[in-house]
Each structure stands twice: as C-alpha cells, then as structure tokens.
C-alpha cells in the first residue's frame, strides 16, 4: 500500500514538474520571437489570425483603476472610431489589480497595455516593458518630472505618466472658518491649538482612516521625508544604512501628530475606513483627515458643496518645513513584445495627451494630467487645483511609500495602529520602520 502510494505520488509529481518546467521554459523563451506564439491563446488566436485577413485587431488593455469609467469609455470609443477595425478590450481590475495582472502574465495572456504604480510595483514589470527613451516626440508631451518617475538609473523610460496625485492633510474650509482659524498651523503646537478651537466649536478635529494601514503608512512618510534629499535620496539613504531614523530631521514630530490624533479623533479610530473618513470630512463632521486629491471625485459625490483644501503637514518649525507629497498615480506601460506594439503605443499617447483623454482626466477624474498638451483644461475640484498651485510653486516632494517597497504599508501600518491603541511605544514603532528599511537594502 505504502509503496504504490509513493509510486503514484512520485509519478504525479514527475508529470506536474514537467508541466511546471515546461511552462516556465515556455515563458523564459517568450522574450524573443516566440512570444507571439506563446501568447496566442484564447481570444488572441482569433484576433491575431483575423488581423492578417481583414485588418481587425484587438488591443488588450489592463486598467488598474476605476476612476470615471464612463468618461474613459468615451475616450476609448473615440479611439476605436479613429482606428477602424481596432477593438479595445479593456479589463477594469480596480480590485486586487496586482494579483490579476500577475496571473495574466503567468497565463501568457499578456496585455498590450498595462498600468502600474510608479516605483516598486512598476519595477517588477520593467523587463517586460517597452522602452520609450527614443520616442522623444512622445516624451516631450509630458512634464519631465513626471517622466522621471518611470525612468530607471540607465535612462530607460518604461512607462508614460497618467496624472499627478498629491497628498497631505486635508481640511474642511467651512469647519476651520467656523472655529475661527484664519492661518494654517505650521507647527504641531499650533495644530494642537487649532484642534482645541475646533473642539470648542463642536467639531471633531480628526477623522483619520485608522483602519487602513495604507493611510497611516502614507501619513508617516511626511515625517520620513528629508527635503534636502527628496524621496529617492531619503529612501536610498535609509536602505543603505547611510542615514538612520535618528538622523531624520522631523521623525519625532510624527508621534506628536499621533498623540494629537489619539486625543482629538474618535474613540473608534481604528474602525474608520477610507470611505467614512472621506465622508465625515466632506460633510463637515470632522475637520482634518490625511488623504490625497484622488479622493476629490468621492468628496464631490458625498457632498457637492464641500469646500476642501490641503493643509501641508506641519512637520517642523516653519512653513518651509511643512510637506506636501506629490507623484504620479499610474504609469501606462506597453508590452515590448506585443504583436500590436505600434498601436499600443498610439493608444497610450492618445489616452494621455489627446483632447478627449485630457478631458477625461480633468473633468471626469478631476485630476492634474502629467501631459502638457492641453494645459487649457484643468480640473475643477478644490484639491487638484490646490495641488496644482503647490506643484507649480515647487513646494512638493516625491512619494516615499511607492519606492519603499511593496510591503511598506502592510509592514509598518500595523505598528502605527498599535501605537494608537497604546500597545507599542514610539521606540517600538521607530525600530519597526528602521528594520523595514534595513531589510530592503
């Protein structure tokens, strides 16, 4: 009994190992000319063969977000109308986008165009991505600081930037007015005084989304930022061990902010999800949260009359120290071995720089495009307008959380939650951050 079982098990394993090696072998060779063969499966077969005969092509687009999908669809419809015979097959995988994109690459069903967050997520796909470095005409249509986010050390450009995303503390203007706050606080002490004023006016000062580890982790990066090094320099320094958390100029202020939150947020802070956090802010039930301008469309939906603005995070002693962090939300990447490479490139350019596309980004998504082709159009929401001002004034710094490795939020977020609950001391939290960055080096 035992022996046969072992034989069968060994047999099954041998077969499946062959299957495993076969499949990985298949994908290893897929870099060259074979790739089109490997990935001609499912729908691709039909469209591929049809392409030869009647000129019908299906462009496969993997979309990792779900912002203003209706307006996005009009852009795609327009693109299809301009390109007879082209069908754009788009997957809106806003939920668990990493997982789904990863499985599409593994199944060989590699999309022609796919989206990733710049930084660690995009880097995973650099080896598959088309290098735009030589397409200078296209690149000139984008702001160079945004293009830099998809560029590696050797100057390869692996993705085109979508829109800017900017984050800081966000406050409800009406609440501040009601509490008689006329100037924005630039130190933690001033922030505390303002909290007192808000409380006296019957407004809950904070409604931080403490349930979301990503919100807490993003919030912490303002205090990691060393403006003399900017995001990349700070992260590199921390990872290589050249600087430690003890060297960071404003790190200890983070705990002052957390203490304020402990004192002035609701008792159920770790229950607040992003949605109720945004909702409380939009409706004036709470005055301050940490979030970015990507939430503008949500705020407008929750309360069309909400007046909101950014409050640069008062990490230090003066207004110059206060931080607003800005980056690009998504990079449009093109699969370098795509059978429809030129069409895919054209699609990206169309979506990101055409009038239709810019209209989608500014009116639909309510964000600041990273392209410079239609600067006459700009977003209408308070926050994107605000962020545009900060960006143009050069008062923003880069994002740390996207280049600090993909497990940053999941690793440090729970420690911040623990501090808010009183389970961890400031030293415990600092140590966890330190260990995280050291392990990335």
């Amino acid at each position, binding site marked *: 009994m035992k022996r046969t079982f072992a034989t069968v098990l060994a047999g099954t*394993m041998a*077969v499946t190992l062959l299957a495993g090696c076969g499949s990985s072998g298949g994908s290893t060779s897929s870099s060259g000319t074979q790739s089109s063969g490997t990935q001609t499966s499912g729908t691709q077969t039909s469209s591929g063969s049809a392409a030869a005969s009647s000129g019908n092509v299906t462009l496969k687009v993997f979309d990792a977000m779900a912002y203003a999908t209706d307006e996005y669809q009009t852009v795609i419809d327009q693109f299809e109308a301009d390109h007879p015979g082209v069908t754009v097959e788009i997957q809106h995988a806003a939920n668990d986008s*990493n997982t789904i994109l990863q499985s599409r690459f593994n199944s060989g069903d590699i999309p022609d165009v796919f989206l990733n967050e710049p930084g660690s997520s995009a880097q995973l796909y650099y080896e598959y991505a088309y290098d735009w470095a030589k397409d200078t005409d296209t690149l000139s249509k984008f702001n160079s600081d945004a293009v830099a986010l998809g560029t590696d050390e050797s100057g390869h450009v692996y993705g085109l930037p979508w829109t800017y995303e900017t984050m800081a503390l966000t406050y409800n203007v009406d609440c501040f007015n009601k509490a008689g706050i006329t100037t924005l606080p630039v130190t933690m002490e001033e922030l505390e005084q303002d909290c007192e004023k808000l409380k006296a006016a019957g407004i809950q000062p904070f409604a931080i989304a403490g*349930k*979301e580890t990503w919100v807490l982790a993003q919030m912490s990066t303002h205090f990691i930022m060393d403006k003399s090094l900017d995001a990349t320099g700070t992260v590199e320094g921390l990872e290589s061990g050249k600087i430690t958390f003890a060297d960071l100029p404003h790190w200890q202020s983070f705990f002052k902010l957390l203490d304020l939150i402990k004192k002035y947020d609701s008792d159920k802070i*770790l229950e607040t999800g992003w949605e109720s956090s945004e909702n409380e802010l939009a409706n004036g039930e709470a005055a301050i949260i940490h979030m970015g301008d990507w939430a503008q469309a949500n705020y407008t939906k929750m309360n069309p009359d909400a007046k909101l603005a950014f409050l640069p995070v008062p990490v230090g002693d003066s207004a110059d120290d206060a931080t607003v962090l800005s980056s690009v939300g998504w990079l449009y990447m093109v699969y370098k071995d795509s059978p429809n490479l030129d069409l895919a490139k054209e699609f990206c350019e169309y979506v990101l720089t055409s009038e239709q596309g810019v209209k989608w980004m500014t009116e639909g998504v309510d964000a600041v495009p990273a392209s410079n082709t239609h600067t006459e159009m700009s977003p209408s929401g308070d926050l994107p307008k605000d962020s545009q001002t900060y960006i143009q004034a050069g008062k923003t710094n880069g994002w740390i959380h996207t280049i600090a490795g993909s497990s940053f939020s999941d690793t440090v977020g729970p420690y911040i939650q623990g501090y808010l*609950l009183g389970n961890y001391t400031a030293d415990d939290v600092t140590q966890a951050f330190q260990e995280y960055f050291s392990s990335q080096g």
Partner: protein
Amino acid sequence: MDNEKKPVRVHSKKGKKRKETLMFIIFVVPALAFVLFATDIPFVMNIYYSVFDWNGISKNLTFVGLENFRKIFTSDKTYWTSWWFTLRFTFFYVIIVNAISLAIALALSKENRFAQVGRAFYYIPYIISLTAISLIWEFILGPAFDSLYESTGWSFFGMSWLGKPNLAFIVLVVITVWENVGFYMINYIAGIVSVPRDYMEAAKIDGANRWKAFWKVMFPLIMPSVSICFLTSLTFGFKLFDIIMVFTKGGPVNSTVSVAYNIYKEAFTNNHYGTATAKSLIFVAFILIVTGIQMRVTKKQEVEL
C-alpha cells in the same frame, strides 16, 4: 477482500480484473481528472516554486534550495502569529457554528410552512455577496451601535468592536457563524429527517428524556451529517480568507491575519512567490495531519456507535 472470497473462479480472474479497471475508469477517472486539473496538479507545481526566489512575474527564477523554509521558520513573526489566530478562530468557529446550526436544524426540521420560512431566513446571509455583508456589518457596528449607545447608554454599544484586537476577533467569529449557519443547518436537517420517527418515539416510550434520546438515538444516526459539517467547518476555519480580505484586511494591528491571507499577501503584495508557496506547503502538511486525525476519530465513532 473480493478476490479472496472467490478463489475458485481462477479462469475469469484476469478478465474480471480488466473489467474492474474499466469500471474504475468509467466511475472514478472523470471526476478525478477534473480535480487533478483544477487543483492537484497546480498545487504540486507549487512544490517546484518553493525552492526558488521568484517574484511571481519575472522570467528569472533563482534557485535557493530550502532558504525559503529557513526564513519562514526563523524570521517570519507575522506568519506564526497568523497561525495562532487561525487556530483560535477555527476552534471557536467549529464549536459555535455546529452547536447553533444543529440546534436550529432540530427546531426547524418539522415540515410546515413556518419551518420553511425560518429555514429560508437562516439561509439568507449565506447567499448574499460578501461585499454587501461587509458593508452591512460596518454600518451595524458603526452608526447603528453609536445611536443605540446614545439612546441606551449601554457600554456594550459604545465599545470599539472593530478597533481592538480582542473584540475584532469576537466580531469575526460572530459574523462568520451568522453568515454560514444556513449551510450547516441544511446539512443537519438532511440528516435529521432521514432518521425514522419511530426510533425517537421508541426511545421516549423507553422513558428516555429528550436530551438523552437525542444523544443516544439521534446523534449516532446523523453521524454522517456531523462528520461532513465538522470537516467543512474545520477547513473553513483553516482556510479563512474572503471575509478577512474584504472586511478586516487583517487589522487592527495584524490581529486578524489568517494563514491563507498571510500567504496571499506574501505572494501578491510582497511579491515573494517562492516564500508564499513554501508557506502553503507547511500549511497543507499541517492540515493533512489534523484532518487525518479528525477523520480517523469520527470514522471510529461511526463504527463504534
């Protein structure tokens, strides 16, 4: 056994054997093929990945031998706390969900209109999509409890049910029990109604009280239902994933990270696919041992009773 019984018909033994193999192919192989294709083979493929350093995307796999396993055993604290959570959760879930669903099944096993409606009610959470369920519970524990707290002043409603690790654990057990009771109830009812009524009547005539009649007569006869429900609840607990994914996301302070969720995060957020498969192998090895023991125990009871 069969072969020993009929040693006389030697001449047909070979033909019979061939025929039995044909029967095996007709009866068993189709179902087996489906399972091999959808789960067994992909799972065995994982054994291959577990000795590689691989991000799940790249064409480059680096062979690292048993390094992934060494790392898990020496320096992965979250994985082992997720074990502790999963074991605790499974323990409470299995006991509570089976006790409650069996009680409901006993009360609603009579065939009348009221029982029919009641069964449908208990079944409802089981057919609602999980996103909707998590929305509802977020609102019950949030705004609904808040307003109840204001009107009653009971501290029960004022607690931060999802914000404190211990309370979140309780909430999670309550929600999963509430959600799945319908499924186990149906299984128990299918068992209960097949017990001939005269068996219970006879026990009562013999003077046994209801409690005793249930344990001595009913329970042994519904043992197949019991073992199905125990196994499914046990594996549900061990494999707990969906509700964590959409509802607690492992928080607060990582207190509700289950093993399956930890494996998922390792593979798709941390992009350590090799480590994640190594974790899943450790997990399955453990589960095989536990369920092996569990099945042996229930089987033994079935025979004894």
